[in-house]
């Protein structure tokens, strides 16, 4: 593979990298000027749009089995080509999710960043780098690359979480996140080392081959490795019982970062988990399927039950997003790779994630908008929102309905697919617990709706919504509705992204 082609395949990542470093440099040059700093936001946004264009440009290149991203290093250097990444539907899907997420977060952060954070330019750079790490993670096909990208994501996330240097909560959140994350990744790494020891390979495909051909010396190490990797990835996705960092980190982090944390690490974690389980361990599907089903039940139930208690909207949404991850996990637990039908579990997960992306980020955008005005995000801050800003209130209502899973919202389509997968695999109990949980979740989403819609605000002053915020919320709203009302392209996107991977592995 030539260098040119190699660079083309990495175009989105390269774009993000360049833009991120340009932002660093520009920030150094113009630092301190508020107006210009504001322009940095738009510059970062422009970079994200470029990355989006790049992603779309390389879209046709993906093929079944994945296009290995590696280039010849020449015979002088050992001659081995070790592809660390791949370009397939799944990777592209997550690249798309990443750029969309970055766009939304960067746009919605403007006002917040201006008011609350130091080093405003760098903030955008870090966000862009975090996005880059997600892209890398979603394409990684080698344990080494997986570790590197995940760790890259972790480190940027720590920094972002603790970005409010002078805030008690932010710093506390950062240290907790850091210690928890470091320990979890150490556990995951230990799992990687065991897997390497068992199969003698670090490439996911090679691991699968080794397991399939029986040339495995220490097969009994595979299951412990699976558990440990699951712990590490579960930490990223915030699956119960590896979720405990997330409420604290969500609450303490700057709200735009919370929005990022609720989507980004989850996306990365799911991307890696999907690839890891499907590519490396298809032979162990019985084991991980049962395990994931159990974890999904725990995650949904616990997330919802504890969310009932929360009075801080950010924290509540943290628990809510734990529960949402549980629903997504149903898709993976009920993976039916050979199914001819509309849902094979994986496309369900991807569709759900796609809908969740807009829903949750939209909801956080509203929270940010309210917080910009009221200074905090507790339930009473939402009182009378329908009077203060009908647009925000109605949008928030739709987002909450989507989180519950009521049509015509994207959340409904996601749930339809996810539960469809479970029913198809005859995992009725899983499906029933899933729908019961979506009923329970109404209780706490209602706790947001009630002040927002039914109660009178002490401060009846209308909330001014900045144009960029209006854009973000409006776009998210449109997408959430579109995923349900004009579902076809989204379903096709999710299905085709999943199909390439499944076709190659099963």
């Amino acid at each position: 593979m030539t260098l040119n082609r190699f660079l083309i395949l990495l175009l989105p990542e390269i774009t993000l990298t360049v833009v991120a470093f340009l932002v660093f440099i520009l920030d150094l040059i113009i630092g301190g000027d508020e107006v210009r700093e504001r322009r940095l936001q738009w510059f970062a946004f422009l970079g994200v749009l470029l990355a989006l264009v790049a992603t779309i440009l390389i879209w046709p290149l993906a093929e079944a089995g994945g296009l290995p991203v590696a280039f010849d290093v020449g015979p002088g250097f050992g001659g081995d080509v070790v592809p660390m990444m791949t370009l397939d539907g799944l990777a592209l899907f997550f690249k798309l999710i990443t750029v969309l997420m970055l766009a939304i977060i960067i746009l919605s952060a403007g006002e917040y960043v201006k008011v609350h954070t130091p080093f405003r330019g760098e903030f955008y750079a870090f966000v862009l780098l975090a996005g880059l790490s997600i892209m890398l993670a979603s394409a990684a096909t080698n344990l080494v690359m997986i570790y590197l990208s995940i760790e890259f994501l972790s480190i940027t996330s720590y920094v972002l979480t603790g970005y409010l240097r002078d805030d008690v909560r932010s710093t506390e959140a950062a240290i907790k996140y850091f210690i928890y994350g470091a320990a979890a990744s150490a556990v995951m790494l230990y799992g990687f080392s065991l897997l390497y020891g068992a199969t003698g390979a670090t490439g996911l495909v090679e691991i699968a081959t080794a397991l399939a051909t029986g040339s495995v010396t220490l097969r009994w190490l595979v299951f412990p490795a699976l558990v440990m990797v699951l712990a590490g990835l579960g930490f990223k996705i915030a699956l119960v019982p590896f979720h405990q960092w997330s409420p604290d980190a969500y609450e303490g982090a700057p709200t735009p970062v919370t929005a990022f944390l609720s989507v980004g690490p989850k996306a990365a974690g799911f991307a890696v988990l999907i690839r890891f389980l499907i590519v490396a361990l298809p032979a162990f599907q019985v084991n991980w399927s049962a395990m994931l089903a159990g974890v999904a039940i725990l995650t949904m139930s616990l997330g919802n039950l504890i969310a009932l208690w929360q009075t801080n909207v950010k924290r509540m949404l943290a628990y809510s997003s734990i529960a949402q991850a549980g629903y997504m996990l149903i898709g993976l637990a009920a993976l039916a790779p050979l199914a001819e039908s509309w849902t094979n579990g994986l496309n369900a997960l991807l569709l759900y994630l796609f809908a969740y992306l807009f829903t949750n980020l939209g909801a956080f955008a509203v929270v940010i908008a309210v917080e910009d005005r009221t200074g905090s995000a507790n339930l009473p801050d939402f009182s009378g929102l329908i009077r203060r800003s009908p647009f925000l209130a109605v949008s928030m209502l739709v987002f909450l309905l989507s989180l519950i899973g009521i049509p015509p919202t994207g959340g409904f389509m996601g749930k339809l697919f996810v539960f469809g997968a479970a029913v198809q695999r005859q995992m009725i109990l899983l499906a029933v617990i899933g729908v019961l949980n979506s009923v329970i979740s109404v209780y706490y989403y209602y706790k947001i709706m009630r002040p927002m819609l039914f109660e009178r605000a002490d401060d009846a002053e209308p909330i001014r919504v900045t144009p960029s915020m209006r854009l973000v919320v409006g776009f998210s709203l449109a997408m959430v509705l579109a995923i349900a009302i004009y579902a076809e392209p989204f379903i096709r996107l999710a299905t085709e992204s999943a199909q390439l991977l499944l076709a190659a592995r099963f």
Partner: protein
Amino acid sequence: MIPLYWWLIVAAALFCIGLYAVLSRKNAIAVLMGIELMLNAVNLNLVAFWRYITPQALTGQVFAIFVITVAAAEAAVGLAIFISVYRMHGSINVEKLDTMRW
């Protein structure tokens, strides 16, 4: 030659010691050191596996080097966070950092 198992047991022990440190030490620096121990256990594993399972390819070695590098970066960020925590809270006792809970 020393059997592979011996290496693995040592690594596992090291991992557990590291974990114990993470769980029990109050000082964040000590916790960080525990994490480093865990990572070193991983490194030991990787190198041992390389030596015994796939001596022909350098994968395990390279992996270990990457881990060491990343650990350094992680420690840097971690220490930076500790400093800001210390500035805000006046200590880095992780047991006392529980303003956010429930």
